[in-house]
């Protein structure tokens, strides 16, 4: 009878232990404000380590972490690797290119092979939405899974480092107005940011984009839709620019790069619509002259470079918390 099936209104949150601690980090969805705050506080404790002579803590000594990147990435993988090493874990980096055929089989075989090597944690990036959930729920439930970006779905560690950045620069989330600008349609970063900002209590989340780059019904996640920069940026405290992929720029979704820049590119002039103390963020890598002017990207309001640094601390926090939850559950099973 259908009542015995998973109730879609209350999906089992596969990323939490029975007592509500993190054991995977798959998406922001379904996490409490307390848990997100715990991640930020833990990240804060790691944040100053980079300046110390000895940059390591022994929290994950003896653990094996595998960075499984089915999709190219330089910065994200590098910060995950550094985060793992600063936690004293052993790290294996695997870049796996997927052909369009037999993707599922390659994924499963790869995972089973690595599982046989007794890995403790997978950091996974994949171009299909839901891959991290799939691995955590179907393939390797006993390995902690950290989602480093899946399709258009989620990029929760990026969102948390962005929240960390906002909290560092703005102090708190209450009363904040945040605008996210650009290619929302293809952005997993935006989706995770919208969730996190709502949970943490931001006053307003705005999405600014042409209608071709706005997913249908996205406002139901808790966001207001704007199609013009002037109204969208008015009085906001934080401006988050998204990267526009080259292949989206010509024809199908946008007429041209030049028109996009003219309408939505963040220039000094458009930034003036925002609050005078507004900060400018970007998940990187930036396209200068496409979504952001160099003078803004390198200007005094930009915190883009700080974001990269905070990424390491945030990922250390998530990895140590998930490993601890996973170990606790393993002990309970034994």
């Amino acid at each position, binding site marked *: *009878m*259908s009542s*015995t*099936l*998973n109730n*879609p*209104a209350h*999906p*089992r949150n*596969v990323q939490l232990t029975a007592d509500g601690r993190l054991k995977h980090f798959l998406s922001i*969805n379904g996490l409490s404000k307390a848990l997100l705050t715990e991640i930020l506080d833990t990240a804060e404790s790691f944040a100053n380590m980079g300046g110390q002579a000895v940059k390591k803590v022994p929290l994950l000594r003896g653990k094996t972490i595998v960075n499984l990147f089915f999709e190219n990435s330089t910065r994200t993988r590098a910060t995950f690797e550094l985060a793992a090493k600063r936690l004293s874990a052993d790290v294996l980096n695997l870049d796996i290119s997927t052909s369009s055929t037999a*993707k*599922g*089989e390659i*994924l*499963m075989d790869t995972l089973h092979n690595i599982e046989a090597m007794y890995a403790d944690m997978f950091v996974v990036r*994949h171009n*299909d*939405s*839901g*891959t991290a*959930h*799939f691995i955590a*729920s*179907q*393939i390797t439930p006993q390995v902690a899974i950290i989602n480093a970006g*899946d*399709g*258009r*779905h*989620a990029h929760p560690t990026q969102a948390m480092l962005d929240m960390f950045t906002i909290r560092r620069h703005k102090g708190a989330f209450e009363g904040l107005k945040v605008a996210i600008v650009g290619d929302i349609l293809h952005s*997993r970063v935006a*989706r995770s940011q919208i969730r996190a900002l709502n949970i943490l209590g931001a006053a307003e989340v705005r999405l600014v984009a042409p209608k071709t780059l706005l*997913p*249908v*019904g*996205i406002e*139901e*996640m808790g966001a207001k839709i704007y199609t013009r920069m002037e109204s969208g940026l008015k009085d906001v405290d934080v401006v988050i620019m998204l990267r526009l992929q080259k292949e989206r720029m010509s024809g199908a979704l946008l007429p041209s790069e030049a028109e996009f820049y003219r309408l939505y590119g963040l220039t000094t002039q458009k930034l003036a619509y925002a609050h005078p103390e507004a900060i400018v963020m970007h998940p990187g890598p930036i396209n200068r002259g496409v979504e952001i002017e160099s003078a803004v990207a390198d200007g005094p309001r930009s915190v883009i470079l700080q974001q990269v640094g905070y990424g390491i601390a945030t990922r250390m926090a998530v990895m140590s918390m998930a490993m601890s939850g996973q170990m606790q559950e393993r002990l309970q099973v034994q």
Partner: protein
Amino acid sequence: MRISILGGRVIDPAQVLDQVIDIHIEGEHIFGLGACPEGFKADQIIDATGLIVAPGFIDLCCHLRDPGPSYKGNIASEAQAALAGGFTQVCARPDTVPPLDSPAIVRVVRERAELAGKAKVLPVGALTQGLEGQLLSNMSGLQSAGCVAVTNLRQPIQDNLILRRCLEYAATFDLLVMIYPEDSALRGSGYSHEGPLSSQLGLAGIPETAETLAVAQALLLIEQTGVRAHFAHLSTARAVEQIAQAKAQGLPVTADVALSHLLFTDAYLESFDSNFHLEPPLRSEADRLGLLQGLKDGVISAVSSSHLPHEQAAKMAPFSVSEPGMSSLEVVLPQMLILVEKGWLSLSDLVKRLAFAPAQLLGLKSGALWAGYKADLILIDPDAPWVLNEQTSFSAGHNTPFWNQPLKGRVVTCLVDGQVHFNHLTTIKGDD
């Protein structure tokens, strides 16, 4: 061989019959209902006390995977699963490997079905050669070889001129065309219902207009060509409205809905469970209610299983790259009984939607218990508890959310052409 089925509650919508009455069978045919005819001596008596007796169900869309990848199933396994689910006849989709676009391949399917000797197989031929949407198939030949209809499934037709020619040519032979309405350009690379949930989950969406635009276009061409047409697997409430309007204007079209779309919505995608990756996609709750209402009102005349068995690996993948479809022949009856319990339809309507209506729209002398009709009938225990699992399931595909789930209501005895195929009243697979 003469068989009497005694004391069952006979439900036959064709005769507007719902009463406890005996049925007598001689050879392949129904001999009569009621008191034992003078001189009729049964060789076998089946006591149907407490059971429902109904005409065997007829499925409008079923994938038998034969010819094709046998690891997904074959005619023997799937036709057996059909019988277990109460389907004595099943329409076989043309997207086999190779596709059912020539009389020779249709004959192969029929021969294999006869050899298997389970549910009777009604081949549905390809509307275009290779289902490629460019050249007309040999429709007259397909009809002579035994195809009950033609369809291009969801494969796109190159343009409206070719669609028009296809419909005109099918109309020449009064051949039924099954239309799976979907605008392939609007569908694009989508695989989920376009709406707030697909946007949140980052799943590529298929807009409602992919279906409604295709329905509108097809309705106009049906009117123009005068073809007999059936719309398969509606998924949106708007499409139900379109069909209702067309019917009200006198256009002789019919429509069905797949069982899964009466039960589930896109909310089930939240956990990325690939069992819910279906074509057409599961849509909103408003759409599901619209489909149920359409079924209740009779705008949708039939329910089909849309049975698509898969091997495990096909579903062990991230949602977007998993293969679409659900194995469902064996759960249609218990799930439809739940809809009866919830008041969406009566038991008589259940039989009508699964047996009589499909027979009518296919133009078959079947789906009813008239004297002289082939004795295809089933005995149902509507309260029997059972579990769908390795012991009870015959389908090669275990890709259903009901796997290992408790179910209520089961076919306990099944007769095809007057022959008892199984009788759970005495021996059954996995009976305990």
